């Protein structure tokens, strides 16, 4: 019996993980279905668009510009080992657009937006505001979840697009100011090298990561336990889950686009 105990624990952990995946899938399905059925709450959507999109611009911009600059330096230093310094514009462009732009924006959104959504909704649950919504004939999924998920699906691809541009610009500034690249040639190489499917894959990833970030925030907020500890745990779990799922989804989507 003692020998079987670890097996039992493993089984329980797997069953627990599968049950959690099932609950999150049902929750996500509910969120999408409520997004498409009236009543709609345009004011809530507008507030969510501003919070998730507009107010995330500074952090996304700063993350992208520093990453683009660092990437240019790294590629120049690495490329110098086999006389390939000239590929800096191409690698910065493809690295930012296909990989670093969407992933870093996704992770920044997970840190900034997922945590904020989870803490806000969890606090509303703890202070009975969600019960109050129900007694006021308002469905919490429609009023709280659907606008936030819709706003993330709309704004995160836009943020990824902006992050891509700023990241490439960061590489451009470092390459032309520090590494001696010709500005016009750098831009031409960047534009010539990028393909439409690079940009499409970036924006699709942004959409997926936005959905993941918002759904994780809403799910853990709605499932929060009692008190300050419950709010803290919901916030922490939401960010952990969103970050891991964003990286896993990135791997899957990269594989899908790679095979096309």
């Amino acid at each position, binding site marked *: 019996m003692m020998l079987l105990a670890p097996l039992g624990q493993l089984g329980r952990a797997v069953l627990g993980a599968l049950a959690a995946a099932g609950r999150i899938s049902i929750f996500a399905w509910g969120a999408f279905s409520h997004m498409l059925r009236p*009543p709609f*709450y345009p004011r809530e959507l507008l*507030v969510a668009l501003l919070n998730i999109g507009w107010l995330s611009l500074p952090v996304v911009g700063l993350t992208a510009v520093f990453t683009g600059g660092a990437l240019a330096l790294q590629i120049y230093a690495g490329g110098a080992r086999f006389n390939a310094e000239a590929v800096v514009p191409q690698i910065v462009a493809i690295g930012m657009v296909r990989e670093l732009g969407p992933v870093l924006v996704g992770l920044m959104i997970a840190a900034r937006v997922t945590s904020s959504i989870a803490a806000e909704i969890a606090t*509303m649950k703890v*202070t*009975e*505001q969600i*019960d*109050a919504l*129900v*007694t*006021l*004939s*308002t469905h919490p999924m429609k009023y709280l979840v659907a606008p936030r998920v819709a706003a993330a699906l709309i704004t995160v691809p836009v943020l990824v697009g902006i992050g891509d541009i700023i990241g490439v610009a960061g590489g451009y500034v470092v390459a032309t100011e520090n590494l001696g690249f010709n500005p016009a040639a750098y831009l031409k190489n960047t534009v010539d090298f990028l393909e439409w499917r690079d940009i499409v894959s970036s924006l699709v990833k942004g959409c997926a990561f936005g959905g993941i970030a918002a759904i994780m925030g809403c799910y853990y907020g709605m499932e929060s336990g009692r008190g300050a500890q419950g709010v803290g745990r919901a916030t922490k779990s939401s960010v952990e889950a969103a970050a891991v799922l964003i990286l896993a989804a990135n791997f899957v989507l990269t594989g899908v686009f790679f095979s096309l």
Partner: protein
Amino acid sequence: MIRMENVHKSFGDNRVLQGMSLEIPKGTSMVIIGGSGTGKSVALKSVLGLIQPDEGRILVDGKPAGSGDRDAFLARFGMLFQGGALFDSLPVWQNVAFRLLRGALKRPPAEAREIAIEKLRRVGLKADVADRLPAELSGGMQKRVGLARAIAAEPEIIFFDEPTTGLDPIMSGVINDLIREIVVEMGATAMTITHDMSSVRAIADNVAMLHDGVIQWTGPVADMDASGDPYLDQFIHGRAEGPIEAVR
């Protein structure tokens, strides 16, 4: 009329309601008393459908609670939550007029604001409170705003969850008097849960004592002091000795 028949509800191993039965005639004010953690809030939330009972029936005017159109069912209720449960992100008037700004009872914003200000006045708050955020108000003012929200759509049934918790005795008295006046004025059916005996005497037509998941005693408030029920006697006199264990 609200009727609860043999209602059971457990949370894991914790059996909160163990066959609670209670009847609240239309247009009367019932106050449910009992110690902390005896299931008073669970009973109230079960009637609203916020918690699903494991067993038993809850009927509102002869129909199972929550059956049929859920929005129409909930539109008959108003509720004052223990902590107010005001929406932090909305100004006071939008909290009060929440139901009037959306859904089946939707009115133009100007009219909804007018009604909200009138309800705020009814609970003793000035119109200048309307544009403040809930966080800018004191606990007593938040309770009054919660009360204004509960009555904004003129519901037939109003629930009050610990209406005086956290308030000083004077503010408690003000809230109790307001609740009594409003319930009488509107002819509403009221269900209040509290362990504040001054609230009981001010608000109740009838009283029910909940202990060990069942109603131990129920009757008119006038009979409460001479009930002879040992549970009720211990509770209303606040004695440590008696059938209710002081340490639970």
